[in-house]
């Protein structure tokens, strides 16, 4: 296993080295050196992870669980840095490093005229390191380290343009909402340690008995996942996180960080399988996020916000898959989503560059004439997103919908209908975007139109590189997914195993699934969605404005994002602030300062005032006291 050890360590260490060197050398390294260094190191990381993945596919490697270093020990608690490599983490690290590499290359072009260029590369390398630590962890504390690390770098990157006040609000919002999730997650880790006395995955999983409170643990862990993977109600940070540069929206908020929650639940499948309540809860939350967030994507003007709500909706799909115990399907969708969503974000970024950083889709139009490569790649990405048969997105999305159909879980029906109707909504907002940006009439100003051209190759090559797996990955992975590729890493109870049922009853191979896809319900809904978008935005463009006037209330609700932001701002935060104020004024000032601290001083002074009388200064008082004391002492000695 020597080579696996070296490969694994390189995968993690290379981005760290890149981040540290470029961070330390911010002042004296040049831009070119910085981007070459970080990009090459991340590429190295990608090739090593690819080698690991191929080794696992070939069956050459077995599950590898190795503690590298013990960094703390206190009583029972031993905190180590260790790596757990198996098929699940091999797939994840390959995806993470690939998308990270593409984003690094893309950023060379996108951030070319930004003063914080070198800082950006340092941060994205650091992010890659933290994400890899999260994925390759073999104990809960290291996962939490990676969890917090990606949260931190997300904060740093959302507020990358820190002079913009909206960026600062957004990054604080992201960090604080994530903190709420981290609180739940940390409580979960504490309960795990309390019951299992260890934080190592392998030890915890072998010790699960019917008596352990898996419901409590899983709810707490899922709160963390809710914040990290932006599920309702902790989803509010993701749309605002679009204040950051587009490459990081692609890297962090589409492909990798937000999927950490999904990965964590899949990794903890032995724990989650034990609790039907938590699985149902997960399904319902995922279904709600999937459906309702998609609808919000229909009323957005900002191109990045549309893709952000699309991310929220797809995350809902993944979480629904987790809830119906189709963990492998969730991971599958995670992988395909990483590719096409990163592609969509990077493509949107390319359009934004061309439009001189104007992000309003109502100011764009007919861009396919000017930016053909961007158009083609974004079209491919959109087809993958809506699940057009043949693309990777089709395989993963339809797998989830079919699995929901077979599910006998309590919330399985909700899951099925939510995911099914989301297909319609997804197609609607996706093609609304495509039509408004790449087709229809040109609405941009003349000055912008004169400079409108395709971006440089360093920007378009990653788009092409991401478009390829968006199409091909699906048909190659589906066999493995359905035939227990992740059997060692993910545990599913036999009665919940919807994927096995699907594989048995309906599945006969990728090609037949493709053909069957053309006559299935999702395809119908998808066509309906595309047709609706075409009708409303290409053929009769005044339909939206009419609807706006007629359905004014609905539109207000949608514009206000169902009031979640208002809820937090106007109701919950004042309560929290009131609690804080109360704790300050009463607990801190009154009780601790006045009662305990000053009170101790006053009571000592009071007692002293009474005791002072004893010091009368009269000699015979003292003599008297001495002899009385002598008497007491003798009494004690003789009779005590």
């Amino acid at each position, binding site marked *: 296993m020597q080579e696996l050890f070296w490969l694994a360590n390189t995968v993690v260490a290379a981005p760290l080295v890149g981040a540290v060197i470029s961070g330390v050398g911010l002042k004296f390294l040049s831009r070119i050196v910085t981007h070459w260094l970080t990009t090459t190191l991340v590429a190295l990381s990608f090739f090593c992870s690819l080698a690991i993945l191929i080794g696992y596919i070939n069956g050459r490697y077995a599950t590898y669980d190795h503690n590298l270093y013990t960094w703390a020990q206190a009583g029972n608690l031993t905190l180590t840095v260790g790596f757990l490599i198996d098929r699940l983490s091999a797939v994840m690290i390959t995806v993470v490093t690939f998308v990270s590499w593409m984003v690094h290359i893309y950023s060379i072009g996108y951030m070319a005229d930004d003063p914080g260029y070198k800082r950006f590369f340092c941060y994205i390398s650091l992010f890659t390191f933290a994400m890899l630590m999260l994925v390759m962890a073999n104990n809960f504390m290291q996962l939490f380290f990676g969890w917090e690390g990606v949260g931190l770098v997300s904060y740093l990157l959302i507020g990358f343009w820190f002079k913009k006040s909206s960026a600062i609000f957004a990054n604080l919002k992201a960090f604080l909402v994530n903190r709420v999730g981290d609180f739940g997650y940390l409580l979960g880790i504490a309960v795990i340690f309390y019951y299992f006395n260890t934080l190592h995955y392998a030890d915890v999983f072998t010790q699960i008995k019917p008596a352990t409170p898996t419901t409590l643990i899983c709810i707490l862990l899922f709160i963390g996942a809710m914040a990290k993977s932006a599920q309702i109600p902790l989803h509010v940070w993701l749309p605002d996180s679009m204040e950051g540069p587009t490459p990081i929206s692609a890297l962090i908020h589409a492909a990798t960080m937000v999927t950490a929650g999904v990965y964590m639940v899949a990794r903890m499948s032995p724990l989650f399988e034990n609790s039907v309540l938590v699985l149902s809860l997960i399904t319902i939350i995922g279904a709600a996020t999937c459906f309702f967030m998609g609808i919000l994507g229909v009323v957005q003007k900002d191109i990045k916000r549309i893709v952000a709500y699309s991310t929220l909706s797809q995350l809902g799909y993944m979480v629904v898959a987790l809830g119906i115990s189709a963990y492998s399907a969730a991971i599958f969708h995670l992988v395909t989503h990483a590719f096409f969503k990163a592609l969509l974000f990077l493509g949107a970024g390319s359009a934004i560059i061309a439009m001189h950083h104007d992000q309003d889709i109502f100011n764009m139009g007919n861009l396919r004439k000017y930016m053909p490569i961007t158009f083609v790649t974004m079209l491919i990405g959109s087809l993958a997103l809506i699940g057009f048969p043949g693309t990777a997105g089709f395989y993963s999305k339809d797998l989830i919908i079919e699995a929901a159909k077979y599910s006998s879980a309590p919330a399985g029906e909700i899951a099925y209908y939510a995911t099914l109707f989301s297909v319609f909504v997804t197609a609607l907002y996706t093609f609304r975007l495509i039509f408004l940006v790449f087709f229809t009439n040109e609405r941009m100003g003349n000055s912008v139109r004169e400079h409108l051209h395709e971006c440089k190759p360093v920007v378009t090559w990653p788009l092409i590189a991401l478009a390829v797996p968006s199409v091909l990955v699906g048909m190659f992975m589906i066999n493995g997914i359905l035939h227990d590729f992740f059997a060692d890493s993910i545990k599913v109870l036999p009665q919940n195993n919807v994927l096995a049922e699907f594989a048995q009853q309906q599945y006969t191979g990728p090609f037949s699934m493709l053909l069957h896809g053309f006559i299935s319900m999702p395809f119908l809904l998808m066509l309906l969605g595309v047709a609706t978008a075409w009708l409303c935005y290409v053929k009769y463009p005044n339909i939206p404005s009419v609807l706006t006037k007629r359905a004014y209330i609905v539109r207000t609700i949608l514009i206000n994002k169902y009031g979640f932001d208002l809820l937090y701002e106007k109701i919950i935060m004042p309560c929290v602030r009131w609690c804080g104020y109360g704790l300050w004024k009463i607990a801190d000032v009154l009780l601790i300062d006045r009662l305990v601290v000053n009170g101790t001083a006053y009571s000592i002074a009071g007692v002293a005032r009474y005791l002072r009388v004893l010091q009368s200064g009269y000699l*015979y*008082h003292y003599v*008297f006291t001495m*002899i*009385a004391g*002598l*008497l007491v002492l*003798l*009494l004690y000695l*003789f009779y005590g």
Partner: protein
Amino acid sequence: MPDILFMIFASIAVLSALTVVLVKNPVYAVLSLIACFIATSLVWLGLDAEFLAWTLILVYVGAVLVLFLFIVMMLDIRFATMRARFSRWLPVGIAITAALVAMLLAFIAKDKFIPNADVAILAYGKDNVRNAELLGNHIFTNYLAQFEVAGVILLVAIIAAIGLIYRGPRNRRQQNVHKQISADPRDRVRLVSGE
């Protein structure tokens, strides 16, 4: 010691002790104390502590109590200035003293302190051994260090006493800080008339 002699000397000692406490004139008190010590020393003679008895008279009476007498006579004490207020603590004090004495009495009245035979004249150890010789042997073999320390204590006492009292040659002008601080303007200046 024959009982009768002990009785005589013991009663002299106790009576003079009472005199010490009850008499008004401090000189009489000191003289009574001297008498008490002499009587006690005679009792010690009867208890085969010859060396100590003589030491008591020579050192204690002859030096310490004479020192007391010097001090009493040196300080100009108006011995009639007994502010004869009956303190409210006095009964409590008497009670405590009585309790102490009673307790100790009860303790020593236990049987273990009463030997079967009369306490006879014992020569501690061999016959014809002189008390001083015996005591000297004992101290200088077992308690030599403590002996030296006792010497040092006496030295310290001498130095301390001189250091506390001695104010220098008589006709040296010196500041009396206490007098300076306790000077009161009302003693020095008196307003006679205000014209």
